[in-house]
């Protein structure tokens, strides 16, 4: 189970699909790593890339953005913008040496509680595998 050296992951979950998915994972008592902090946002497109940059620069181990599957956005098109941004941002982060595992975008619907648990477990594992190569948190 959880240990202190598990990475801390910030999860942005869209209110309409992914957050409900996370909720379902919770009520279904699915087992998953506890070191993730879920922030509910109205849409995955609400996640400004600056959030991700700031979080990673301030010592978080990873950031995950969860949105509705393409075509299912509550606001019709929010996640299409997210898709473009996320891909570019990932390229930029990788370019300066932030491993792609540390920033991920996934689609999770309200009924996919199991997928939520599995996604968090998987990403935690991936980031943990990078461990030791993490920059120290900022002085301060």
């Amino acid at each position, binding site marked *: 189970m959880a240990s202190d050296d598990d990475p801390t992951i910030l999860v942005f979950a869209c209110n309409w699909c992914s957050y409900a998915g996370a909720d379902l994972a919770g009520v279904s008592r699915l087992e998953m790593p506890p070191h993730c902090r879920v922030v509910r946002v109205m849409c995955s497109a609400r996640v400004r890339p600056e959030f991700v940059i*700031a979080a990673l620069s301030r010592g978080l181990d990873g950031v995950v953005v969860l949105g509705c599957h393409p075509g299912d956005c509550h606001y019709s098109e929010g996640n299409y913008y997210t898709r473009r*941004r996320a*891909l570019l941002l990932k390229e*930029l982060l990788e370019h300066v040496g932030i491993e792609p595992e540390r920033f991920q975008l996934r689609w999770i619907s309200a009924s996919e509680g199991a997928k939520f648990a599995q996604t968090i477990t998987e990403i935690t594992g991936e980031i943990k595998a990078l461990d030791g190569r993490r920059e120290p948190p900022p*002085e*301060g």
Partner: protein
Amino acid sequence: MEQELREIVRKLLEEGAIEYFIGYAEGFEPLHTTPCFIERGEQVQALVWSPLCPYNLARYLHQMKDGAGKVGLVVKGCDARAIVELVKGNQIQRERVVVVGIPCQGQVDLAKLEDAFEGAEMVEGKGDTFLVTVGEKVHSVEKERLLREKCFSCRHPISFEYDFVLGEMSPLVYGSESEFAMVEELERLPVEERRAFWRAQFERCIRCYACRDICYACYCQECIFESKAPRWLEKTTTPLDNQTYHLIRAWHMVGRCIDCGECERVCPVGIPLRRLYKKVEKEVEQLFDYRAGMRVEDLPPLVTFAAEEPALSSRQDRSER
């Protein structure tokens, strides 16, 4: 060409067609020019032109936001892309700007010049060569040796209508390397080496904000870095603070960077900023087939989308599941 420019400006001012004109003037020595603001006809003698005029004068159009009159300025082809973007971003109205295009034949990199010719006093362009004056002597040198890096990827806006041109406006063609070669070189490094590379660069940063302040595209009323609530960036200058600064800035360059190279030129501590912004430029072009500053009607890449994006899907396998 200088004389022709001066006459155009004199006429514009005397006819009252513009309030002032932004051009290049002699600086504290011949190798350094400086921007100038010409307000009266008799001042036009101050205007100069040479391969030592790096400034992207479109940056000064930020100042005309509040006024109502017209402003004239001289632009190199690369700088004209800034005007396209400023119009696109509703920062200026095209009809309020009188654009004089100057057929730039390449700009000199001062560091390269000083390395190659100690005590150089003056540089002129002549065909494929620069004529460098050192004392009594004039050396003729192939342009490629002294050009600013950005001149190797010279690109002009498509279908841009200059109000005046001082010759034929066409891009330079020099070098055979891909313009993204320096980005690709970094891309080939393992991720931790890239991290070490950028860490060493960011560590040097003194956050003087010259790269932001010289950028034509940094016209926000309140810069994100000055916002107190929320505070995105601390005033402290640890490598991670500096990384935050440069990453956010690079992000804001998406679809905006025209590779005028001014940020890298002015960085006092020599951070190779073009390698950062060129990366963004490269991805934007390859993923979205978009290049900033080419046409006013082009839609910036992040304000649009397609339900099916084949260009993206090849790379999505890992990011989208």
